């Protein structure tokens, strides 16, 4: 039998750089109140959200990704030609073939990088990060771009008072590359397809095409069920990720949960009994829920404002439609 040469990777991987793009249009709660019967106070008390960004026609999924990824590449100190793979997580790119990752890889000027999209909702960043780490360690790519990008304003029912205020648009990206010591811990991830009705797109595109529904599909959720699962079940997953990485809550510097809703974040912090010394990402207040983009966007902002610094140990956890989840401990770039 012929002997196959094994691939040659690296012992460890780390996040080398991060970048974000927030659309230029800032949308305050007052705009949301034009289509739902609610109040600024109600929206803030239920979600913590004050403003979100909505993309314009030029701020496409690809355009926002290229902006965020360009910053991440510069932050990592590499060139686009060195990127070996581009992984894009999105649920709001409406042209499914070809994968938007290929257009992004081309526009960035990569040298024919492998490029593909994944669909893992609000856990997409963690799923992508796990794939990227695997690629670097296994050796199929030296540097991997992981991009979370959404235009959730296109999938928002502006007349649904339970969700109209929640969603925002944006892109967040990281570059994952080789490391000499562990900087991305074991991923604790999974899916609970039996709870698929909890957060979902209302109807398939084909129902809209066929005229069986009048309203364009939107994302809908069962608020209380989502809250219970996100806080109490995800706190267990977050704890498992800490344990898997051998990190205690006292050793943690930063907590970056998916920016779904500030009430979920508050309750998770309480349930996890995180010490006050831990910096908690609350980007949801001004960015809304941007699904797969929320964790890298929050990471980028914490580093930009100085609330977190390079080398800090951060727990990241994404959770959402599927239901799916992914948590891990990382060293910040």
């Amino acid at each position: 039998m012929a002997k196959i040469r094994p691939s040659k990777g690296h012992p460890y991987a780390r996040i080398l750089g991060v970048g974000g793009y927030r659309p230029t249009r800032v949308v305050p709660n007052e705009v949301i109140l034009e289509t739902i019967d609610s109040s600024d106070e109600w929206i803030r008390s239920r979600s913590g959200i004050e403003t979100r960004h909505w993309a314009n026609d030029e701020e496409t999924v690809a355009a926002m990704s290229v902006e965020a990824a360009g910053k991440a590449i510069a932050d990592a100190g590499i060139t686009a030609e060195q990127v070996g793979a581009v992984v894009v997580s999105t649920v709001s790119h409406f042209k499914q073939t070809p994968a938007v990752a290929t257009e992004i890889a081309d526009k960035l000027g990569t040298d024919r990088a492998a490029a593909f999209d994944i669909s893992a909702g609000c856990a997409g960043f963690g799923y992508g990060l796990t794939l990227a780490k695997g690629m670097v360690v296994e050796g199929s790519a030296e540097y991997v771009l992981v991009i979370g990008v959404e235009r959730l304003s296109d999938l928002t029912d502006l007349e649904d008072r339970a969700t109209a205020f929640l969603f925002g648009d944006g892109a967040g990206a990281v570059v994952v590359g080789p490391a000499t010591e562990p900087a991305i811990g074991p991923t604790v991830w999974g899916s609970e397809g039996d709870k698929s009705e909890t957060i979902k797109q209302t109807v398939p595109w084909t129902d809209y095409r066929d005229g069986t529904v009048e309203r364009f599909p939107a994302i809908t959720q069962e608020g209380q069920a989502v809250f219970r699962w996100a806080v109490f079940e995800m706190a267990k997953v977050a704890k498992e990720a800490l344990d898997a990485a051998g990190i205690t809550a006292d050793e943690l510097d930063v907590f970056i949960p998916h920016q779904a809703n500030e009430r979920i974040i508050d309750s998770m912090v309480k349930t996890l009994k995180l010490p006050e010394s831990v910096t908690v990402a609350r980007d949801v207040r001004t960015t809304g829920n941007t699904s797969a983009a929320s964790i890298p966007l929050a990471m980028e902002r914490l580093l930009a404002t100085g609330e977190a610094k390079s080398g800090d140990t951060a727990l990241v956890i994404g959770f959402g439609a599927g239901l799916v989840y992914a948590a891990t401990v990382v060293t910040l770039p």
Partner: protein
Amino acid sequence: MAATQEEIVAGLADIVNEIAGIPVEDVQLDKSFTDDLDVDSLSMVEVVVAAEERFDVKIPDEDVKNLKTVGDATDYILKHQG
């Protein structure tokens, strides 16, 4: 040993106090969580989870919406506690 109605109301009062900051004496059987006790739909989930632990009872999501008053919750726990 199963908790009595009185013990359940006292336990719920502690929980509501902890979560919503409402004085324990305000938590009475006829009080509505949302209208009288400042417990919104998300805080209600926290109350339910805390009650589940305290009284060894399972309160599924689909039953939570039926627990409008402290009395509703007390009756539910009395009937379902382990």
